[in-house]
Structure formats: C-alpha cells, structure tokens
C-alpha cells in the first residue's frame, strides 16, 4: 500500500525535493519489519580483530587486558561511513518515454540516499557531473548538510555528453575517507571503460555501487514505423526500423547490461539496474544492504 508513494510518477507530482526524499525514505522504512536505525543505538554489534591502521580509539582495552589481544568493538549505531553520490547530469539523462525523466528519477534517488544517510548521521557528499564536474558538495555530517545536498541536487541541470574519466579522477582527489560511492548514471559507455574508470575507487577501500538508471524505452524500444533517431548527446541521426529495434537492439542492450553487470561484479563493484518506471524502494534496499555489510 505504502509502496505506491514510491512510484516515480507519484513522486514527480511532489514539489519539493526534500519532501520527496522524506516521503520515500519514511515510507520505505515504515514498510521494513526491522528498524534499520543502525547509527542511533549503542547496542553491541560485533568484535573485530585489530588490523594495522585501525583507529586505536576503538580498541576494547578490557578485552586486551584479559586476552592480550586487540579487538575492535563495534556498535550498531556507530557510523563511520561516508556516502558520496555521483549524479550524472549529461544530456542523455533528459530522455523519458513517460512522465518522469531519467535525471529526475536520478535526483529522487540521490535525494533519498542523502536523506537516508543524514538520518543515520552518515556524512554525505555529492558530485554532479557530465563531462566535467559541475557541482561538488563535500561530504559532511554537519548540521545543514542535507539542505545543501538537496539544493545541489535540485539545481542540477542537464549538461553535455557523459565522460566518466574526468569526474572520477577528480573524485579520487576529493575522497579522503573510505566510504560508499553511489554512481547514478545511464552509463552510455562501453562497460569495460566504465569499470576501468571507477575501479580505482574500489582499491581505496570504498564500496562502489553503480545505479544504472534506464528508461523502459531504452531497454525495450517500441517503434511503430521506421524512425529517424537522433542521439541526444552527439546529435548523430540514424534511421531505425522497428524490426531492428525489436530484435537486434534488444539483444545488444541485454548484452550491454549483462556485460556491465559481470564486469562490475568481477571488480567488486555492486551493480544495480533501475527502470525509471519502477518504484525507488529497490534501490534504497540495495543501498541499505550494502550499508549494513559495512558495519
């Protein structure tokens, strides 16, 4: 019942992005059986063996006194995660075949993630990019961070074409702490190149999630006759027959998705395909599952 509030077409009717994020997250959380308030309780979660480099402040010295072994004590409410949202604002994100554009959907998703992180006292940051970094909000958990994030997300507009290399190189400079990096994009690039570009982030101990946002028309185009298709980013035009779109293109699209998914897994990157006609809860669930694994 509550899931209908997560419907993108319903969310599109809500004016404020903060309200959208609140509606999504609260509605989503209310539907869970167990409260995922990881960061607010002081309930013991687990012990973990000390490894060089861990913060000595988290060592349970009582255990060390008894066992002479150093263990780190972790609680559910403890958060040391930093969420960085990479929002693709290239021109291809403007496409839509129904009521909501891919960019809007990506904004809802980014806002929801930011809201969720804020409620968990996680530091959250944002990078809006196309072929350049268009906007950057440093990750923080300070008061007012959510407002800054939402404002940045809200003000993101479509730019030019996508170029992953430059924004991700920039991101590597900004990311000082390990955390979760959520890249929200339609990933119109060769899967190999995408993975090669984002993989360095993974080497630094970051958890990387690729939210592959696609319009249903992109996955299964419906053409009633031969049409002249124009690339939103390059402006290139090509005449396409329905027959090709119904058969060869779908095969290529499925192969493209599968390739990106396979390469991501191989690189330890989480990949999640999002259809903009479907509710947002699946994407949030994915984020929380990963967030839980980080504790």
């Amino acid at each position, binding site marked *: 019942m509550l899931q209908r509030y997560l419907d993108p077409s319903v969310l599109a009717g809500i004016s404020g992005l903060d309200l959208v994020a609140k509606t999504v997250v609260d509605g989503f959380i209310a539907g869970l059986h167990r409260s995922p308030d990881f960061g607010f309780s002081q309930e013991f979660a687990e012990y973990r063996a000390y490894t060089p480099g861990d913060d000595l402040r988290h060592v349970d010295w009582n255990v060390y006194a008894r066992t002479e072994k150093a263990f780190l004590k972790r609680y559910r409410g403890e958060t040391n995660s930093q969420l960085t949202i990479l929002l693709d604002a290239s021109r*291809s*994100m403007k*496409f839509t075949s129904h009521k909501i554009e*891919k960019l809007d959907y990506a904004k809802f998703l980014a806002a929801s993630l930011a809201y969720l992180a804020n409620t968990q006292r996680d530091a959250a940051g944002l990078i809006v990019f196309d072929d350049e970094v268009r906007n950057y909000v440093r990750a923080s958990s300070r008061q007012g961070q959510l407002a800054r994030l939402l404002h940045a997300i809200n003000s993101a507009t479509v730019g030019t074409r996508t170029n992953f290399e430059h924004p991700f190189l920039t991101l590597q400079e900004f990311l000082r702490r390990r955390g979760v990096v959520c890249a929200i994009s*339609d990933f*119109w*690039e060769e899967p190999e190149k995408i993975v090669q570009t984002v993989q360095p982030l993974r080497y630094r101990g970051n958890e990387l999630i690729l939210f592959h946002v696609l*319009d249903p028309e*992109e996955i*299964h*185009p*419906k053409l*009633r*006759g*031969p*049409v*002249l*298709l*124009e*690339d*939103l*980013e*390059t402006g*290139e*035009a*090509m*005449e*396409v*027959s*329905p*027959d*090709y779109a*119904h058969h*060869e*293109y779908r095969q*290529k*699209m499925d192969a*493209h998705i599968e390739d990106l998914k396979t390469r991501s897994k191989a690189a330890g990157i989480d990949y999640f395909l999002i259809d903009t006609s479907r509710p947002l809860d699946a994407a949030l669930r994915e984020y929380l599952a990963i967030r839980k694994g980080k504790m």
Partner: protein
Amino acid sequence: MGFLAPWFLAGIAAVGLPIWIHLLKKHRSDPRLFPSLMLFEKHEQSSVKHRRLDYILLFALRAAMLILLALLFANPFIRRAIPLSQQKHLTVVAVDNSFSMRADDRLQHAKDEALKVLSNLKPGDQVQVVALGSQVQALTQPTTDIAEARAAVASIQPSDGRASFGELSRYTRTLSESVKLPIELHLASDFQKSAMPPGFADLRLAPGTTLAAHQVGQAAPNWTVESVVAPRRVYDPKKVRIQAVVAGFGTPAAKRTVSLMLNGKVLGTKTMDVGENGRAQAEFLGLDAPYGFSRGEVRIDSADTLPADDHFIFAVERIDPRKVLFVDDGRRPRAELYYKAALDASPDAAFQLESLRPEQAANVKLSNYAVVVLSDLASMPAGFEDSLTRYVSGGGAVLVALGPGSVAMPRVPVLGEPIQASSYAGREGERFLSVSEVDTGHPVMRSTNRFDGVKFYQVIRVTPSKSTVLAKLDDGTPLVLERQIGEGKVLAFASTFDNSANDLPLHAAWVPFVQQSAAYLSGGGAEQPVNLTVDSYVELRSADSKGAAAEVLGPDGTRLLSLEEAASAKNFAVRKEGFFELKTASSRSSLIAVHADRRESDLSVMPPETLDLWKATGGDESETGASSTGDQQDKKPAGLWPWLLLVLLGVAVAESVVANRYLRPPAEEARSKRKEAA
C-alpha cells in the same frame, strides 16, 4: 476495351496519396531523440532498406487499390464476340412490295429469299415478317412460329406505294427499343436508289442491328408516262388541252407511241422521239368527253420490265358552263362589259353571264345561278334581298359591287354591314387611294398582284363587324369583304366594276380577280385535286361538317369506308392506283384518279458503297456479309466490373495483412502489456 464513364479515370490521380504517405512523408519525418545510438550500427541500414522494400509492397497494394477503385467507377468493358447463332436475337424479314417490285417477277424472288431466311432459322428463334411499301406493315408479331411467318411471306401482295428505306430503319429502331434484343434485319428488295431518304442519318440502324441485304433484280431501262396535265372540268370540249410527259430512265433514245384514251376509247395517238434518259411532251387538243365524270388515260407502248407505269390515268368532269346573274340598274353599262369580258377570258369558259334588271331578277329562280352579282344598286325591289339571303343560306353566292348609288342604302345588301359614307378623292395629282393590305393567301386575291398600280377615286366606307376584310386601302377603308352566311358566301367590293370610281378594269389584276372570285364563290371553296399519287389523302369532310355520311368507292367498286368511318372520318388515304369515286359529307361527288409515284419508275440501284455504309450504321462490329448468316458475329460490350471487384477485394485483404504485419506491436510487448495490466 472502353469505359462507360471515362471521367472517373481522373480518380487515378489519388495514387499520389500513398506516394505522399510512403515516400514524401517518410523523408520529411521529424527525428526522434534517443539517449544514445551506441548500440545502433551503421550496417543496420541494410535492414532499413529491406524494410523499405516491404513498405513498397504496401505502397503498391494501396496504389493498386486506388487504381482499381477508379477503374471500377469508370466501368470498363470489352467487346466480346458472340456468334449471332449463339445469342438471343430477333430476326426481322422485310420484303419490299413497293410499286417497282412489279417489274419482272421481283416480288416473287424477294419472297423466295425471305423463305430461305426463314428456313435457316432454328426452332425457338424469334422472327417477324414485315412488308415494305409506302409504310412498314408488320405482318406478324415477333414469334417463334416459323409456319406463321411463312404464311405471312406468302400473303405479301404487290402494292402501288413507294418504298422508303428510312421508314424501315425508323421501324427497326423503334422495334429494337421495345423488344430489347439485337435485331438481324433481312431485307429482300430491289434496293432502288430512289427509295433512299433525303438525309443519310435517317438510315441509321439501332445499335446491335445487323442488316443482311438480299438483292433481287438489277437496274433496267424503263419508260413511263411521268405526268399528265388535264383540266378537272370540261366546259367546252374543243378548248381542252391534254399534255402528257413521257420519261425514260436508263433508256436509249427511241420513238414512243402515246395514246390518249377516255373511258376506254382511244381518242388520239401520237409518236414522239424520246432522247436517251430524256423526256418528251405530247399534247392533245380537244377532249370529247360526255357529261359527268370520265376516266382518262395516257398510254405508251414500251415493252419494258415495268409495264405498270406505262399508263397514266386522270379524271375529268364534263359540265355546262355555270351561269352568273349580273344585276344592274342600267346606270353603269360599262361595268357589265368589263365583267363579262373578264369572265370570257377564261380558257375553260366555265361561266356564262346573264344580265338582268333588279325588278326582273327578283322574279327569277336564283338557284339556277352559281353566282349573283349586284352592281352598284341604288335600291332593292321588295323581297329581292330576302330571296337573295335565302339563296345564299342554301349555298349560293353573291358578289356586291358598291358605288355612288349604294350610299342611299343603309346597309350593304345581303352582307348586312352598315354603310357609313362615300369617300371621294380627286382625279388630279396624287389625290387617289391605293391598296395597302391584301390577304394574298385567300383564293380570291391570289393572283391579283396586290392590285398594284390601281387607283381608287371613290369607295364606299363600310364598317365591318361580322365580315372578314380581304383587302384594305391605304386610308384603312375596307376594299374587299367576305362573309359566310349559312352554306353560302357573300363578297363585297367597296367600289364600282366600271372605270369611273377606279381604274381596276384597266389593269391586269382585273381578270384574275373576276375569275377567281367567280370560281371561289361558285365552287364553295378550294377544291381538292382529283389527280393524286398513291398514299395521298382526300378530305371527306371539313372540321365543322356533321351529319351526312361520306363514301368512297374503290377502283373495283367496293366501298372502302366502314360505317363508322363514313360517319366520322375526315380523311381517307388512297393506297393503290385506280379511279376512286368520292362523295364528301357536303354531298359533293367527284372522281379521283390515283397513280403510283413515278419515282418508283426509276429502277437504278443503290450504290454498293452506300449499302455498306447503311450496314455499318448498326454498330461498330456489324460487318456482315450479304446473305451470309452462318458465321455472323456480333461483339457485345461485356462489363469488367465483377472481375475488378474481385481483384480489389483480394488486394484489400493483402493490404490489411501486410499493413498489420508492419504496424502491429511485437507479440512479446503485447504479452508484457497484458502482464502489467494484470
């Protein structure tokens, strides 16, 4: 192949619509934005081209639909040859029995040809037999009874009429419209050139009518008595002049003997030279005819193939000259002189003038006179006008000449119109009156040359109320008036008959005026001719005649009118040669001589090319050979619309299938849609 409605072919231009949809519209389609063409490859254009080929098939089907639709409305047809022997048709057997078919045994040959045609018919074939004389006479209705048709052919007798091929064509056109069948016309005739109508268009046969010509006889030289000029009445036998014209058609120069016969008795014979294809005129003076009607004949010796036209009959009537009573009070002696001289100038000497004073005339029996002339009487004896009125009412005629003496009377005697005054004009200078208006169609005024140059110095003004004015002077004064009283007539002349009040007796118009007025008044109107050609009409009664029965006795003495016709028929057509005794409703008897039209005597034959043209009028494909009936074919227009409709339906189904294949959403999408809907 043809089109019944070729203008609908303009609808083929609608083919431009699918061309626009499939070609022009495709090229002008707006590009559709797509996030990335990364997964589309250039070499996939071949797939698009393949699709274009498929669309061209759709285009071709749609264009074919439009073309077929336009063709359907244009209603195309082809002419399909159907042997006449296989198609239902009506055979019309026409036998020419006109006057020229009396030559040799042409009629018998024509009947034999007709019987041959009938013998070639199959059981169930419809046939009609007609005889072609002066009119087309249907001897049978369209029937399948061949025996009846044979009997009809056998019953055909020679006639004296003149054949008309135009009349035959008109009959077949009418028949074609009524029976709604193709007509196979077999004409057994001598195909006389003179039987052609004046305009070739009159020969036009109805579409689908074929003409098979069965020629009997050939062109042959023929002499004939072409015409005879004879008076209808003989008053003085010694003054009669008979003129006969002998003509030769296709004849060499020869001597011909011409005989004049009266009541079977030869009165005179003459030999004359007739030139090649020429004419010669014979003249006989004197005709010793007995009183009453006589049957005259001019005969030649010719020994040609058509002896029936070697004589020419005419009718004459021998009567005494009719008496004209000239009543004059002695004041104008020259009036009688001029009037008598004019009457006696007639070559027929048909009138005998008797002059009396008014008091004497009042005591005579007026019915003995054909006409009574009152010449400027100053007064009428007691009872004379009454007896004149009774005489006119009983069929008599009075001619009144008004003058200075008549002014004393209040009214014109017998005529009854009031006399106003006398109108004088001086004799000097231009002070005279002339005639301005003349009814030249009236028998009395016909040859008077409109009284041209006649000067009237004194006329009596009469106000016409019941009379008809036949001539007027230039001041509007009526000059000649006529009034019908009972069975008779009264004619009034508003001036004198001497040269004192006018100079008419000194002009050439005087004699015809006197003679025509006397003939008109004595004859009771225009008499119909007594020498007629076959198929002429004679008048039995005028429009207002009632009561008395008319009677017509044929050449063989038989009565030709039924009781009903005798009581009511106004006209009677004479259909054969010979003498007809006629008694009209007004009890006037006459003998009428009827002879065949002499154009039938010209036995020259219609040119073959003309005959071919006539045959060709029956339709585009009526190239039928003469008397060849076995392998004749007629090409009938067969509509193609049922076949076009079938093809159109097939194309429409194919178009639906092809279009559905192209435009239908893929099945898997439809399935996913259903799933989503569920």
